[in-house]
């Protein structure tokens, strides 16, 4: 009986999700932790198989940070990332993750909450997304082929502009950008309000609030300066930094960029669609 009980203790469950074209499998004996992932990433859930990377989570008994709003909430901790054999070790005050790029596995240890994974994903995703950039942006599709990336820091209006798109929004917080057959493609990544999808980018909008709608074309060099602060830079990895830089300059030069001041009214997308054809 004891042996059976021990086997049950280590029974590992799995959930798989697609972050753009990067398919990740998460494993843990902590089913409650996996349920947090299912809640946040449910629209990006995929059938098991063909995952390109596996993250195993092992809960620790460390107390949760006192200011954590919920086990699903974000919580930024100072992150130390150091190279180790075949990968990186990502360490925070309450968690540690060993990323092995050769075996395509990571082992994450921390309190049973989502924020330790958040802190790892912000390091892992730019590494795994080798053909482009991860950008802090909303992604709104015009139709099956065309879309707009709307960038800006928290409070700039990403969620508002996504909500006003009335069902055309693919993501309101994070999107991946890649080059594909000389086209720049935006790919939705999961956050609170997002769904899987991709679109050829016809414009990048840099958001700001205003009393009315106003659009101003940016030069490529101006667009680049605005984009720089919205990229998840793989700052611990020089080759990945060089790669991201190349994609960033390509994005700034090839996709028309605009400063958009907008009022949160229902006609904003009519305005954008008319001005940005």
């Amino acid at each position: 009986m004891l042996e059976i009980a021990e086997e049950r203790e280590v029974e590992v469950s799995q959930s798989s999700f697609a972050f753009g074209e990067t398919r990740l499998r998460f494993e843990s004996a902590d089913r409650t932790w996996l349920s947090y992932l299912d809640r946040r990433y449910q629209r990006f859930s995929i059938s098991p198989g063909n995952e390109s990377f596996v993250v195993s989570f092992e809960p620790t008994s460390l107390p949760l940070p006192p200011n954590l709003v919920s086990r699903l909430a974000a919580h930024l901790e100072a992150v130390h990332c150091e190279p180790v054999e075949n990968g990186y070790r990502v360490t925070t005050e309450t968690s540690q993750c060993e990323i092995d790029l050769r075996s395509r596995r990571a082992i994450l240890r921390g309190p049973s909450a989502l924020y330790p994974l958040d802190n790892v994903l912000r390091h892992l995703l730019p590494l795994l997304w080798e053909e482009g950039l991860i950008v802090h942006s909303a992604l709104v599709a015009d139709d099956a082929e065309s879309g707009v990336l709307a960038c800006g820091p928290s409070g700039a209006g990403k969620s508002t502009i996504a909500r006003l798109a009335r069902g055309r929004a693919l993501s309101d917080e994070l999107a991946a950008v890649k080059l594909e057959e000389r086209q720049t493609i935006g790919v939705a990544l999961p956050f609170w309000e997002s769904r899987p999808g991709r679109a050829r980018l016809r414009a990048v909008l840099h958001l700001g609030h205003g009393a009315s709608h106003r659009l101003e074309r940016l030069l490529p060099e101006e667009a680049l300066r605005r984009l720089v602060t919205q990229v998840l830079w793989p700052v611990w990895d020089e080759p990945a930094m060089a790669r991201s830089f190349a994609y960033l300059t390509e994005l700034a030069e090839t996709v028309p960029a605009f400063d958009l001041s907008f009022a949160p009214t229902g006609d904003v997308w009519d305005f954008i669609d008319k001005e940005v054809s």
Partner: protein
Amino acid sequence: MGLRRAAHVAWRRVGDETVLIHLRNKKIFVLNPSGGFLWHGLDGARGTEEFLESLTLDHPIPEGASGRIDSFLENLREADLVDAEGAPDEETPSLPEYPLPAFVPPELVWQEELRNFGLSCIFLSGDELCNSGPSL
């Protein structure tokens, strides 16, 4: 012996400006067109005088141009964007045409420290805007 572009710096011209990224200290820099012209010629062989001699301008070179170039090169050195060590390149590439009709002081016009979380709500807390997601 002149300065040369450091190996840990990637760079590209974007529009009229030249953008550099220091791959080790996680900073990005932007040079004005005049600065980009000089950057292109930093091959270990050229110094301030060689740069001045290479300029083809519609207007005379103003007094103080040499000092402005020296100052610019010093700024690049302080930012660890150039190396002073090592022999010049075996083949000195020709410089592009100076992009302006008159001398404009070369400048490092913008810089930004790069971060890996992009100011995203998904990685920040303590901001009401960032805590609006579902809670258990």
